């Protein structure tokens, strides 16, 4: 497979082999980084981070990844300080920025923006979130985290908890998990159930899928619980929201019924879906998950820049 110059826009564009390859490269880079402290594969290369929407983790971890590869970074963290405010089109912004850089990372509030950017740009474009559509590097780092923690993905029973209707993270994670032999428990309030077409697709691809509204009942089954935020604005009334919020919080009480080896993940930021008292337990995997962002993004930057070789 040709990686140099390739765009990373949607997890749909990847085969299982390609996903596995990225994870292997990330692992190799993590080891190398631990050994040497810093690397210089991307020396002389420039990453442009175009964040039309705010983000803490994604932007900083891309920038950190590029620095750790020995490259440098330019970019902006909000559209308000750019010519976009003067009415410049996305296409023109991309054509301009590519004159200054070797690879572009973009986050944009509109669905499809990264795909459009990739069509306009000659240099590789990596999607760091396009509206409510895709966030492929998050999915890859999630898979990397799971693989590191369990040594495998096949055979795991995984619960996805929270806003399964609108959450782009859980949609693309579920799609990627369908490449593996997993059982999925979809745990959400009635209002925020996983869209039917995604469940059908998962079942067609051989995944055992169970839907539930109860965290308490399902938690004893799970090897891994992937928690996402439930947003207040999804609920027509405040009382309904408060009821739901309470019953989906992961805390020590809920974890009493879980397997000792259960791991809890969260793409962060969290509000109160996971109580801070869980942070110190061996269940907590979410900060390790944050760490995974760097090697995985190093792998993607290095591969698309064509500086890593085989």
């Amino acid at each position, binding site marked *: 497979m040709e990686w140099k110059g390739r765009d990373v826009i*949607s997890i*749909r564009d990847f085969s299982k082999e390609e996903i596995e390859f990225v994870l292997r490269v990330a692992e190799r880079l993590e080891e190398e980084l631990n050994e040497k402290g810093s690397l210089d594969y991307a020396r002389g290369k420039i990453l442009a981070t175009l964040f039309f929407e705010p983000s803490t983790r994604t932007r900083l971890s891309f920038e950190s990844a590029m620095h750790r590869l020995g490259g440098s970074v330019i970019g902006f963290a909000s559209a308000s300080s750019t010519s976009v405010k003067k009415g410049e*089109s*996305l*296409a023109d912004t991309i054509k301009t920025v590519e004159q200054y850089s070797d690879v572009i990372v973009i986050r*944009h*509030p*509109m*669905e*499809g*923006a990264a*795909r*459009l950017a990739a069509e306009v740009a000659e240099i590789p474009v990596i999607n760091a979130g*396009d*509206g*409510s*559509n*895709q966030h492929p590097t998050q999915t890859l780092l999630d898979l990397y985290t799971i693989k590191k923690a369990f040594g495998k993905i096949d055979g795991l029973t995984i619960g996805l908890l929270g806003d399964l209707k609108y959450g782009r993270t859980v949609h693309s994670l579920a799609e990627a998990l369908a490449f593996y032999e997993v059982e999925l428990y979809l745990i959400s309030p009635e209002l925020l159930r996983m869209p039917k*077409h995604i469940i059908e697709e998962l079942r067609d691809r051989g995944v055992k899928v169970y839907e539930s509204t109860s965290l308490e009942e399902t938690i004893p089954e799970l090897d891994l619980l992937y928690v996402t935020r439930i947003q207040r604005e999804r609920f027509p009334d405040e009382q309904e929201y408060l009821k739901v919020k309470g019953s989906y919080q992961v805390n020590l009480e809920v974890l009493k019924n879980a397997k000792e080896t259960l791991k809890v993940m969260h793409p962060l930021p969290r509000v109160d879906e996971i109580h801070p008292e869980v942070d110190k337990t061996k269940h907590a995997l979410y900060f390790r998950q944050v760490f995974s962002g760097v090697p995985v993004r190093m792998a993607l930057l290095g591969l698309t820049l064509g500086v890593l070789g085989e």
Partner: protein
Amino acid sequence: MAELKVSAIREGTVIDHIPAGKGLEVIKILGLNRVNGGILLLAAHVPSKKLGRKDIVKVEGKFLSEEEVNKIALIAPNATVNIVRDYKVTEKFKVDVPEEITGILRCANPNCVSNHEYTTSRFYVVSKDPLKVRCHYCERTMEGEEILRNL
């Protein structure tokens, strides 16, 4: 109704079995209404055994390819196309939904970049029956009525 017979044009294309009222749209989608194009005939609300009423479009001096005509599959899924040479039908085919639909459909997602930036819309056909398409940009799917509303 003799003048509506397929053999009535000398050289060109006859598109038959268009749902009644959709003839003008067919002309628009296929770009047949150019001033310097061939003579264009639209027969609307013609009695039809199959459809009750139907529209027929004829264009002189232009031979449409299957690929071109497939663009109208979304609004005229049962249309048949006759290529006429020297008053005789020399080729006949039915429209077929193409794998990819470009330019004629708008994405129903108001937050899709294709509705805000200068682009040519592009959809992949996920299923032909029932018709379901996925937007190349925002990856959302549309089906049935939603597709017709966004033509």
